[in-house]
């Protein structure tokens, strides 16, 4: 029988710290912190990793104060739809407030990961100066900085292990920033500069790579010519993850054999990306590594179907494949029979705005994959046609799906055979895939699909909806169901005030809700904001200049972003954003 806390208090704090150190999930540590004051104190002093899913959900100073011993922080800023230009560029997500607070309160910080935030060069310089043992900087989908800021990082972070720049908008004003890594610097393990536009000084880069024996990940940008790439890669045969630069050149037998021998020298390569503008001449040089690859990203490779088919058929151990729709149904059928270990598939459109689809990629490709790849759990698929029958088949084949994002390119596209909405198909997906955590809908959809989602998608955490539904009922089904929903993003749906106001408390259980081009009025936002003080209700409107107070209640909202927060309304809203 438990003796109560008298017994527990007999253990010194270090014992509990050790016990808590086995709890990896933040949710578990949060739960532990609620047990009693003692555990709260011990837990907060020993927490080493902090994840802030919304940079405005908590004040930086509060986070730093509560967890004084943090070594690794990850922070996210803008809403996901910022990726598709739906969020004004000046909306917010600036990193200064966080970096300043961290510089003051976490001098031992080693890892910082920022996503969709505005990071200035000043921020980078502050990071470079403030954390003596800084080891990992990861910037994903950020903007606001230049290579001058990177130079500061290179020059000052003596123990940097990882510099991961993924899909950022970076201004190129310091051409030789790589040369700012001192000669004594040898700790690099991972370097991802694929998003940089400018040319690199190859010899400086070669020098850097030669003196970093632990380098495992190297992702270059497209600028480096193939000959230079080859001589660089010969310095790093130990690479596990490679993103090449341009993979085409005039045909030259000597160069070809150099490329072949370089790739043959990679004994540990597991992940391959880049391969910009791959031409058929040099592509076969990759074949020697195909069998060991677990991850292949051909997004930038403008390869056509026959070569693509040949390439992926060699990759028997592939777990992740990102590819253009140039692979076509035939290519996917080949993948389904060759890549039996495939877990994640993403198929992107090569010609998203083309009116007449010349690409022969249809629902058949995805059905084949779902049948042949038993371990498939994550799908992102752009196509132009779909049927309920295909979705049903996919649902039955792959009940283990955790992420299903289907984008049928033309909005409101029905089942092309029956002309019915795709309600039945998506309903089958959510009913069959009990562990589904992320879902993106597309095609012609009525309120019925939302009824199924609300009722069946119990593990769903993120839902993206566009051009779907008939009325508020649709939104009501979602908000009154989907127990674990964290992020909901909606655009161009006839969802309005009633559903929002009927489900106000749900919004505090979620991280955020985005609605744009729906039917929400300002009056509802006002009511919501008044009822729920721990929500920030942000009205975004780039059309008008007058202040929000003068607008009537029935004014239709263009864009709406609602998120829970303990920090109150933010102070850095731009002119087009009003916190109601």
């Amino acid at each position, binding site marked *: 029988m438990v003796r109560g806390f008298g017994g527990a208090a007999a253990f010194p704090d270090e014992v509990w710290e050790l016990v808590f150190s086995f709890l990896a999930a933040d949710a578990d540590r949060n739960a532990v912190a609620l047990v009693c004051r003692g555990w709260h104190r011990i837990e907060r002093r020993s927490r080493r990793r902090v994840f802030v899913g919304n940079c405005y959900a908590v004040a930086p100073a509060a986070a730093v104060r509560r967890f004084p011993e943090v070594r690794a922080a990850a922070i996210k800023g803008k809403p996901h739809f910022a990726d598709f230009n739906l969020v004004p560029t000046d909306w917010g997500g600036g990193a200064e407030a966080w970096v300043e607070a961290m510089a003051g309160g976490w001098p031992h910080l080693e890892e910082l990961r920022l996503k969709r935030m505005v990071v200035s060069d000043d921020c980078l310089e502050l990071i470079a100066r403030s954390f003596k043992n800084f080891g990992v900087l990861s910037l994903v989908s950020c903007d606001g900085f230049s290579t001058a800021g990177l130079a500061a990082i290179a020059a000052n972070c003596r123990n940097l292990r990882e510099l991961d720049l993924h899909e950022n908008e970076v201004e190129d004003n310091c051409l030789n920033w790589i040369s700012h890594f001192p000669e004594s610097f040898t700790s690099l393990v991972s370097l991802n500069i694929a*998003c940089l536009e400018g040319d690199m000084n190859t010899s400086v880069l070669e020098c850097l790579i030669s003196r970093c024996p632990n380098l495992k990940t190297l992702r270059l940008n497209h600028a480096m010519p193939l000959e230079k790439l080859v001589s660089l890669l010969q310095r790093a045969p130990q690479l596990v993850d490679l993103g090449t630069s341009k993979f085409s050149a005039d045909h030259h037998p000597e160069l070809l054999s150099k490329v072949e021998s370089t790739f043959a020298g990679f004994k540990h390569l597991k992940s391959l990306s880049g391969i910009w503008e791959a031409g058929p001449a040099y592509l076969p040089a990759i074949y020697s590594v195909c069998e060991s690859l677990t991850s292949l990203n051909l997004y*930038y490779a403008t390869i056509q179907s026959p070569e693509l088919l040949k390439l992926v058929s060699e990759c028997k151990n592939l777990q992740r494949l990102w590819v253009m729709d140039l692979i076509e149904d035939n290519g996917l059928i080949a993948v389904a029979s060759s890549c039996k270990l495939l877990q994640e598939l993403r198929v*992107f459109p090569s010609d998203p705005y083309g009116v007449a689809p010349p690409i022969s990629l249809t629902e058949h490709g995805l059905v084949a994959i779902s049948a042949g790849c038993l371990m498939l759990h994550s799908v992102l698929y752009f196509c132009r046609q779909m049927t309920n029958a295909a979705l049903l088949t996919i649902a039955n084949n792959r009940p283990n799906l955790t992420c299903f994002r289907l984008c049928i390119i033309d*909005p*409101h596209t029905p089942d092309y055979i029956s002309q019915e909405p795709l309600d039945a198909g998506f309903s089958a997906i959510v009913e069959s895939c009990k562990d589904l955590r992320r879902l*993106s809908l597309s095609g012609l959809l*009525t309120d019925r699909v939302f009824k199924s989602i609300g009722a069946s998608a119990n593990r769903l955490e993120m839902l993206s909806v566009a051009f779907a539904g*008939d009325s508020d009922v649709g939104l009501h089904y979602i908000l009154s169901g989907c127990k674990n929903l964290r992020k909901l993003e909606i655009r*161009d749906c006839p969802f309005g005030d009633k559903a929002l106001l009927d489900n106000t408390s749900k919004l505090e259980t979620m991280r955020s809700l985005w609605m744009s*081009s729906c039917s929400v009025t300002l009056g509802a936002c006002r009511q919501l904001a008044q009822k729920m003080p721990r929500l920030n209700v942000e009205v975004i409107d780039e059309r008008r200049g007058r202040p929000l107070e003068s607008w009537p209640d029935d004014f239709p909202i263009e864009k709406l972003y609602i998120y829970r927060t303990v920090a109150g309304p933010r102070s850095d809203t731009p002119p087009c954003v009003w916190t109601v």
Partner: protein
Amino acid sequence: MDGGVGYVDVDALKATELRLGLPGSDEPSEKPPPPTTTTTTTTAARPSKRSLDEDRAARREPSEGGRATSTRATKAQVVGWPPIRSYRKNSFQAMKTEAEVAGLYVKVSMDGAPYLRKIDLEVYKGYKELREALKDMFKCFEGCKGSEYAITYEDKDGDLMLVGDVPWEMFTSSCKKLRIIRGAEAIRGLGSSQ
């Protein structure tokens, strides 16, 4: 529940209206209906008579669940759709097109105007802003009130195209010069496209 079939139909009705205005230009109203995102454009404003009849038929027999009638607008290009990372789109499309020139200055001519103008397409975020800017620029040349006009452009191949059909980025990269056609020619031009 309010909303539903009636609401959606009104919207679609508006989109399929027979008008002589430019595609995508709405009459100004105090209470704009919830917009289908900014800078929505439609392809050649062909007389959508067939669509109008279809719409009336749909409303006479409301389909269960109120099937969205905006299938008629399938050719509409909207902001942020399909949902492709703007970063990726820029990189990939940039590879396909030629190198961009800093500042996309193009000549603008208007029928009947004594001289041309030049504008920088990069300054505008989309078709709506461009139209407004052109309207402002050529205000003084407008003859009788309410005269119709069509904004056209000459593309890379030398063809005369109606402004508004393709996504904004595609337009700015292929537009060589703009031409505002006025009066009878404009109406004839709009009516004759299939």
